[in-house]
């Protein structure tokens, strides 16, 4: 559905060089530290910035050949930008109805009611959480096939975050041809939502992994001094020295759990994976 091949964007002191793919029927996460290039990827896909090389393919066509209908098929949430603060929820409804034939007006109204987005208050008077909810609702209420979501849950409390993630799951369940590309600082959100994810650092994709595989096969080993020397290193990916020993990242957790009975072996979370892959040393 969306394919980026060697997409480059040069800024002073930063270069994006990105190759990744979002397949239909899947939710793909993009994780990485602040300033890694996640928003630049989103902006390049949405045509908000030009690129200095590479190719972006959207719905099987080059980004430059995207038709007006193709653009109707995309819903976007951007972390730092939304509808003008001078508009109200009612205005947003009227605008989206005018832009999108097939805009799900009843769904939008119903969900706005459920999320407490009512009244004639201008958006600039909304809390950060209310703005975030409105942006996600505006995206999922469109007749889109691809959602591009940059930090959609930023500023939401735990309950609102769960409901928002449920909205995204429902969106995917309604049509198996749909897809979502999402970034979030809250790795729990991505662990429970994404089918696969890309890790980006300094503008480059560092790795790509299936979320199921991360949760079932990856692990963190915490050996004490002597145990470290005896460990089979074939399945170790990264090592990070810490104040009290070190942490090792493996993609064969069961192997170590079964063969080293005294070794502390824990499941790896997305946060562990990100930290070890970016801060750890390759083994």
């Amino acid at each position, binding site marked *: 559905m969306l394919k980026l091949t060697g997409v480059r964007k040069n800024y002073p002191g930063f270069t994006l060089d990105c190759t990744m793919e979002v397949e239909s029927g899947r939710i793909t996460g993009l994780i990485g530290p602040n300033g890694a290039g996640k928003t630049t990827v989103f*902006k390049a896909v*949405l*045509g*908000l*910035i*030009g690129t200095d090389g590479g190719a972006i393919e959207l719905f099987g066509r080059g980004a430059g050949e995207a038709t*007006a209908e193709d*653009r*109707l098929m*995309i819903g*976007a949430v*951007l972390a*730092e*930008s*939304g*509808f*003008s*603060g*001078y*508009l*109200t929820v009612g*205005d947003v409804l*009227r*605008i*989206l109805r*005018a*832009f*999108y034939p097939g805009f799900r007006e009843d769904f939008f109204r119903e969900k706005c009611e459920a999320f407490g987005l009512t009244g004639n208050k201008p958006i*600039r008077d909304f809390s950060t959480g209310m703005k975030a909810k409105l942006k996600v609702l505006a995206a999922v209420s469109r007749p889109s096939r691809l959602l*591009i979501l940059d930090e959609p849950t930023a500023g939401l409390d735990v309950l609102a975050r769960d409901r928002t993630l449920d909205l995204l799951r429902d969106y995917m369940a309604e049509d198996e041809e749909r897809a979502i590309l999402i970034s979030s600082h809250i790795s729990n959100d991505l662990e429970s939502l994404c089918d696969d994810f890309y890790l980006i650092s300094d503008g480059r994709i560092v790795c790509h992994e299936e979320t199921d595989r991360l949760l079932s096969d990856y692990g963190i080993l915490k050996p004490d001094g002597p145990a470290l020397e005896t460990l089979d290193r074939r399945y170790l990916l990264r090592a990070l020295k810490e104040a009290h020993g070190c942490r090792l990242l493996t993609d064969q957790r069961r192997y170590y759990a079964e063969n080293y009975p005294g070794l502390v072996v824990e499941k790896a979370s997305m946060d562990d994976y990100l930290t070890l892959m970016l801060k750890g040393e390759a083994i």
Partner: protein
Amino acid sequence: MKGLLVKDLCLLKNQKKLIPIVVILAAWFTAFHMDSFAFTYMGLMATIIAIGTSSYDEYDRGFTYLFTLPFSRKTYVREKFLLGFLLLAAGMALAFLCVGAAALLRPGTIDGGEVLAAAVSSALICAAVLGVTLPLNIRYGSERGRIAMFIIFAAAVLLILAVTKLLPPSLSSGVTAFLDRLGGLAAALIGAALAAAVCIVGYIVSVRQIMKKEF
């Protein structure tokens, strides 16, 4: 285009308190026999309000999100011109209503030809102002665009003053005589052609500017 127009009309609701003030002022101008000025005033207000919608778009990095919606950058420029012309037409209509009311209240005091000339010249000048201001706003943003607009208009006034001072008296009186000889219709056509040229150049420059912009 429709979505953008709806968006701008929703934004213009924020300025609804301004409408009675504008109408009262236009009525006040006509009450004091400044019928022509009512057209200039209404036209300029309409143009300023139309241009002002782009600062609402810009507010709080709104441009970035706006341009993820399904329209092309060229459409954005077209819509701003269309909105400007629509508001200008509305402004002229309101001015006509005020002057029409004045004509009923004090019959025989209003010269129809003069009123029509004022309406046409005001509309053409305001259309040209739109054609100059919009590319500046797109290029520099609403704040810096406003400063750039003042600089350009000040430069234009100085240029006109300099030209009129520096022209030899014979040439200057020749131009004046030529303008006097022109009939109303011919002058309107020349004015319309000039305003259209300014708007076309303004449109082309605006499209170029917006195509280059990164959000």
